[in-house]
């Protein structure tokens, strides 16, 4: 599909397919169109031309609420939580949404065992259970990030789109977070993960497939080993000049 902002072409004929069981990473330098791609994929923006389908259904511009109901959820690049709510409550919002209990205006949330259990389960997968009563705004930055992703997982989506899941996290903690994410995805039954990531160690360490974007086009779409061998892609994305033979 294509996406134009006025005269500026942010996405110029990008085609992408994600199948169940895949972990796909989208990489590319700044300005390559990754954010636009995410916004189009997650129903925030309709494409100017072309179509987006999820499980056979056209999802162009349907908006995040309906998309989440269909099973495609997204986490944000900048930490996005509910600052005044406790960690437990943040996840409970997702559980309440999943169980369609938002309409219950007279029932006690505190006494809803099913919601609480569903939320605690997720918190435990993300190693946040001991901080369940902490107001979200008081958590450490890395924990806030985990909480953001955890609440997205609590929707039990089929496909989850992670926008830079390890950004703002120290290098030492990045692998830890990825391990938690992958394990949680298995436990929750998420069928496919798409992430936008800058950290190449993470990308090459976890992906089944890598899609490299540059200036609104797909430069390469292949397994990590193939990408690594493709010097042009590496140069474009990582910024290293191709190694000169013989030196």
């Amino acid at each position, binding site marked *: 599909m294509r996406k134009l902002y006025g005269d500026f072409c942010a996405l110029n004929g990008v085609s992408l397919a994600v199948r169940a069981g895949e972990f796909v990473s989208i990489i590319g330098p700044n300005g390559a169109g990754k954010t636009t791609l995410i916004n189009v994929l997650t129903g925030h923006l309709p494409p100017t031309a072309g179509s987006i389908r999820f499980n056979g259904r056209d999802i162009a511009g349907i908006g995040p*609420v*309906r998309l989440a109901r269909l099973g495609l959820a997204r986490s944000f690049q900048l930490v*996005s939580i509910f600052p005044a709510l406790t960690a437990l409550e943040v996840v409970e919002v997702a559980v309440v949404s999943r169980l369609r*209990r938002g309409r219950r*205006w007279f029932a006690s*949330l*505190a006494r809803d065992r099913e919601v609480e259990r569903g939320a605690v389960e997720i918190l435990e997968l993300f190693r946040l259970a001991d901080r369940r009563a902490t107001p979200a705004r008081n958590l450490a930055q890395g924990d806030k990030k985990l909480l953001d992703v955890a609440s997205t997982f609590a*929707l039990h989506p089929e496909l989850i789109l992670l926008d830079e899941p390890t950004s703002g996290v120290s290098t030492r903690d990045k692998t830890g977070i990825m391990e938690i994410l992958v394990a949680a995805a298995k436990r929750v039954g998420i069928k496919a993960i798409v992430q936008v990531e800058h950290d190449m160690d993470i990308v090459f360490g976890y992906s089944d497939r890598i899609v490299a974007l540059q200036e609104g086009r797909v430069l390469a779409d292949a397994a990590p080993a193939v990408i690594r061998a493709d010097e042009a892609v590496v140069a474009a994305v990582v910024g290293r000049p191709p190694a000169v033979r013989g030196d």
Partner: protein
Amino acid sequence: MRQRLVLGLVIALALLYPLVASPYYATHMLRFFAYAIVVLGLNLLFGYTGLLSFGHSLFLAVGAYTAAVLTSQLGIRSMEVVLLAAALASAAVAVPVGALCVRYVRIYFAMLTLAFAMLFYSFLLKFYHLTGGDEGMRVVRPALLFVDFDGVPKTTFLSHHYYYYSAAVLLVLAVVMWRVVGSPFGLCLRAIRDNPEKAAALAVSVTRYRWAAFVVSAVYAGIGGALLAPTTGQVDPGLAYWTHSGNLVFMTLLGGFTHFVGPVVGAFVFIHLQDQVMSLLPYWRLVFGAILAAVVIFVPGGLMSLCSIRPRALRGRAPRTAA
């Protein structure tokens, strides 16, 4: 536990009050009961959902005029019917008005709600054949629980019979509101207040929930208005004027919008303070303006933030509007 003791004490004091206080002060409490209901509703929208309405005087006036029309024009004097009719009328107005207003946020929402209140004010003023214009409309003494108290002198009726009735209505509605804010619905509202984009990403229909909160808060304002009407026996267009909405916001801020009872405390202080200051100075509005400025600058959390009492729900989770 301590919180329940305090609550019990307050209720006991309120019940004993008419027996010890002069009828003048007991009648004052009637205004407090009515306004407490209104601001409880307003704070559902503000403290819990993050939308500040400057138009709640609209629904208060709808409720008050419903009471006037029913009792003095249609001869329906059952207070229960009046309250129900006020609730339905407010909801009927809130559904379309809310549908429009919740599409906007912050200052635009506030201005839209203010505009609707002023629209109603103009309507009340202009259509004097229907509404009595600036002379307003009479409110006939209602029957409480289907009992006619016409034989009772006015001050006794207001300071005893109507006092306990109003207190009971406030108590019931406060319990209902407590349940609402502690419900899954209440949780979604707070999420929307904190981060509407994130809430949407978690499949919470932001506009629809805001709309629901708007209608509920409008119903509360309407019931409060209907309860207020018999205390003066008269309703006038001034009830809908936007500065009346301003008073409601003042009460909410004064008491503290981050606590469930904050607005109720604010209403109590405001009404009694207004009475005291008005009797001392002609420039009471100046004093109140200064108080408001002081609250915003020095005690933005309101009077409740000065207390160390932290409300806790069952199982130790705080049902406050904000941590």
